[in-house]
């Protein structure tokens, strides 16, 4: 009896804690449907309106959105292609010191962005690449590739050796084995790694705020401007916030299990 009571208590607690933890997001979501004049009052009953969304969806917003989309897709595609090729080479092409090279890629993840921004800013300025999408794609790819290599190496290593041997005996060329045998097997792993790169790039703030000004700024920069320019339009801010977080959250919902697998598999024994 008391065990059961205990269990119900724990379950209720779990619900309460998770809802409280998510409350800020929930509150932002609700506030996005409130009239600007009511937004500060924390009431749960209100007449919902789409005014904020209408007010936020402007050509300006679309410019930031389009920058974010182009930069994120560019980064994901380049990182995925280069990362998968590198991971394949590390696992299968018998590179000497493959392990050291792998670890070199991983250590670049440790390097804080401030460690490189000074020369990068100066070089970009000299090359007239400041405030361009190309520059941001390049910078984000520098972070995306190591992430891809880290996760995809694990997936390539999981392919059973016998399958590859069988393909080779059947006269499959190396390229054939890669495209016809391996890629289908690691496809899901590649997709989930690429989605993680997507989320990281979409949310990236440091390079976006330092290497862009007006032409190529992304959504995180747009959001940060609410603090300075429109500090008191909380309804519009909430509407914009809701729109920019929805994509990464949905990606998170569907892929968090494979993220965890990709991140832990390399370093978890057994």
């Amino acid at each position: 009896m008391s065990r059961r009571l205990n269990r119900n208590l724990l379950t209720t607690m779990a619900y309460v804690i998770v809802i409280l933890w998510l409350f800020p997001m929930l509150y932002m979501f609700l506030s996005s449907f409130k009239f600007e004049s009511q937004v500060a009052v924390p009431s749960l009953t209100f007449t919902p309106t789409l005014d904020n969304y209408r007010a936020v969806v402007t050509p300006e917003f679309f410019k930031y959105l389009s920058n974010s989309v182009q930069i994120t897709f560019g980064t994901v595609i380049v990182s995925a292609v280069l990362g998968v090729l590198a991971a394949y080479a590390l696992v299968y092409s018998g590179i000497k010191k493959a392990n050291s090279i792998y670890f070199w890629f991983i250590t670049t993840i440790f390097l804080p962005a401030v460690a490189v921004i000074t020369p990068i800013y100066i070089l970009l300025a000299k090359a007239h690449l400041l405030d361009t999408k190309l520059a941001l794609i390049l910078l984000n790819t520098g972070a995306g590739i190591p992430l891809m290599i880290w996760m995809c190496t694990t997936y390539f290593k999981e392919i059973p050796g016998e399958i590859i041997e069988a393909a080779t005996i059947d006269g499959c060329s190396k390229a054939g084995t890669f495209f016809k045998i391996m890629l289908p097997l690691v496809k899901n792993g590649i997709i989930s790694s690429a989605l993680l790169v997507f989320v990281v790039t979409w949310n990236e703030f440091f390079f976006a705020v330092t290497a862009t000004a007006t032409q190529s700024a992304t959504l995180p920069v747009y959001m940060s401007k609410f603090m300075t320019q429109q500090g008191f339009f909380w309804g519009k801010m909430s509407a914009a916030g809701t729109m920019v977080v929805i994509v990464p959250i949905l990606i998170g919902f569907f892929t968090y299990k494979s993220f965890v697998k990709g991140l832990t598999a390399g370093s978890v024994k057994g």
Partner: protein
Amino acid sequence: MTTKGDKSKLLILPALIVVGIVTQIPFILTIIYSFISWNVKRPDLGISFAGFSNYKKILSDGQFYQVILNSLLIVVVGLTICTVLGILFGLMLNREFKGVNLLRTLFVIPYFVMEAVVGIIWKTLMLNPSLGLNYYISNALGLEPIDFFGKYALLTIMLLIIWQWTPFFFLIIMSGLQNMPSEILESARIDGATGWKLLLHIQLPLIRDHINVAMTLGLINILKVFGLIYVTTSGGPGSSSSNLPYYSYKALFYDWNVGTAAAIAVVTVALTLIVVQRFYGFMNKNNSKNI
């Protein structure tokens, strides 16, 4: 499968080149810049070799030590609380009950929300002392609203980091708990291990690797926190809520002092390496004790 003159080795080159161009070469340049005197806004002063004067300058600035201390505090406090909460929430949601899958999925949300949005939501809707929820709750309790981003700026930054990163720790630790072989738990229970004993001697040692992964990735990312500070406190009041990345950013983009900014960046990397190394030493010592 592998032969010596294998051309597929070349497939690694594009990745090496891009990552090298974006990380390695700029970092070497940063080290070089840290020894020159160069103010972008004062071209008349020119660029000259400065020896160690940039380092002397930042090391004689009291603010710099406060920033280092802030960074360390953020990391130590953030990492500890995130780990403890990650384990607690992992255990809490590792049971089977109605809706547990939904709760697990929902709980990952904060990790996927961009720092810029986390910062502004907490600064306005939640904690603003005159219009936010903070005001209404304090009012209802008959208290003076707390000025979170003023007086308690550093603590509040930590709170936000913990809010955002605990779900990540939970995710990794949870997967460790889920993958635990049930026979081990069963036999431990038969041997009479319950509650705390089961947790400390069976469950935690078994998810050690997962805790390691969560803490390592958490450490790297908490050290790097920037956007959160940028949109909430701008490192202030004074430098009271600055960390090393933000301080270095300010040296470059407010003062336009290339040498100083580079020197701060080099010290940041050095400290990052020391912290990461210490952390590994600490984790290994802990691990060997458990074996």
